[in-house]
């Protein structure tokens, strides 16, 4: 993919910074982890 200009985020991410992407991934992963735990038990 040719580098494309986005006013928000970077050419590799929709998030404004790596930290924000990391925290979002962290929250999403914990939601999945505890969601699975609650639904399968």
């Amino acid at each position: 993919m040719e580098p494309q200009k986005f006013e928000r985020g970077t050419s590799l991410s929709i998030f404004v910074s790596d930290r924000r992407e990391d925290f979002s991934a962290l929250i999403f992963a914990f939601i999945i982890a505890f969601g699975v735990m609650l639904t399968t038990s």
Partner: protein
Amino acid sequence: MIYTIKSPALLIIGILMLIWGGLNNSGAVDGMQSYLQKSAYGDHMKVKEKFDAEYRVAKELAASEGNPAPDMKMKASKFDHAKADQAKLSNIFGSAFVLIGLFTLVWKPQNGSLDYFVSVVPGVAYILLIAFIVRWGLDPVFANWGKAVKDSGTLSWDFAKIFNLNYVVLGIVIGMIIVNIFKIPAWAANGIRTARFFLKTGVILLGTLYSAAELAQLGGLSVILIGIFVLGSVGIVLFMGKRMGIPNSMTAVLSAGMGVCGVSATVAASPVVQAKAEEIAYTIGTILIWGVGCMFLFPTVGHILNMGPVQFGAWAGTGILNSAQVAGAALAFDPHGIETLKVAEIFNITRVLFLPIIVLWLAAWYVKHEEGAEKVNLAQVVVAKFPVFVLGFIAMFALSSAGTFAPAGHYQGKYFSSSEVKEDKLLKGKETRALDGELTRLREPDGAQALGKYLADAHVVSDGHNVMTAEVYQALGDLAANRKMTTRQQSDILKSVAKMEGFDGVAKGSIDNAVKAATHDSKNIKEYRNWIAWLFAFGLIGLGMQITGKALKQAGGAPLIIGGIVGTLKAVGSLIVVLMFVKEFI
């Protein structure tokens, strides 16, 4: 800037997904699914035949008594579950995409967050559609094809397994084909940038699959040997990468691939060191090519050097980079026994368990080298730049080790529990009689002597001590009395003893059944694996879409050179160490 592009594409993708969900629900694609889900379909047909026979008998009985036909339903099989899962996912996402697709067609987007996040959805749908095709279509097609070629005798090995032609590699390849041949549609461009986010989520969740208990169950030698070679390989690649002037991200991702466990380690380490898509592709290519070469070379060398199964297993598990290739080499060396494979797998699993340590190391290394540690305060840089999601991975690992997500003692997603053995899985009279008979035989002088010799020769160990004949008598007697395994130790002892030459076939079958009945799959771990597989498939297809031919050319040949040198050092070094020490220790 307005991001949302008015296009019917999202609506069409949603409709396609709904059609697939409907076809699965109605059974209209059962013919195709029976090919794709070959093994599940085979099991399904066996269960169905049994059910049909039972139903016929019940119906005839009811008719003879003048009663109406009984209302019996077949229990859902693995095949039914697989179809239901596909239908569920297709319907959920299909409905969401149809609704958002319709909304984007009638809505007048305005500058702001709503426009920004709505514009992400078509790209997500685009990757997800491809992920469905890869996981539900291409992955099983290649698996069936590889097996068929092997079964036909055209090749003596399964090419799909050896070349790792699973959804991970296929996802990247499909992404690369799309971007280089068809180009990314403009309406999908924004959403494709979510690939790394989903990949990071998958890496964090990966932490749930590992537990400290698994590491504790492995032998000390495998931990030491693997530790030296994993850390050594990572260190050498990092050193050589710096010397040869290749980018830090490329060096770091290559070191994870060469040091730990091939493709999955590469994928796990890639966001930690902000590796570019082409660097990941390069690393995976290097590992696969190198691993396939080793897989063919190792068994030949093993036979020339007259290595034993334990020695060869230790060498293959340490020196070869990828799990499938480790198994391939072990089976090529010893096609009829499983001893080599078992040892190789222990070493292989140990290596995988080093992943959390390597991820942390690479995160710290990358932060330090990218910022130039001499100029800035390392602690400050780490606080500012350390990838937070790595801590998430470690937190998941810690929680999993503590038994939050799965039974604390689980091993590869399986755990022992006597209290969960179902009533219908308890041993039958014929089986307990066979066990009693075997117990009587082994107590007689000849039997006791043969048992004692077997325990000593086979080094049967439980809880760190050599098993004595009295423990075997106790274990066998308890099994016959309780009709199920009561402890993991009992299960381990009897599993080993059942392999003894001359052991009664029915008694052996009873032990196998009792072990199976007390070994349970962790439902949570199964679910986590499924989530991780989807997140990785999604992330890797998106990453594949960022790999252009031009970018690959720019990466140059240095990674291949480093990979070759480190791979050779690892293979030769581990061979020397194994030949020198393994015989004495195991």
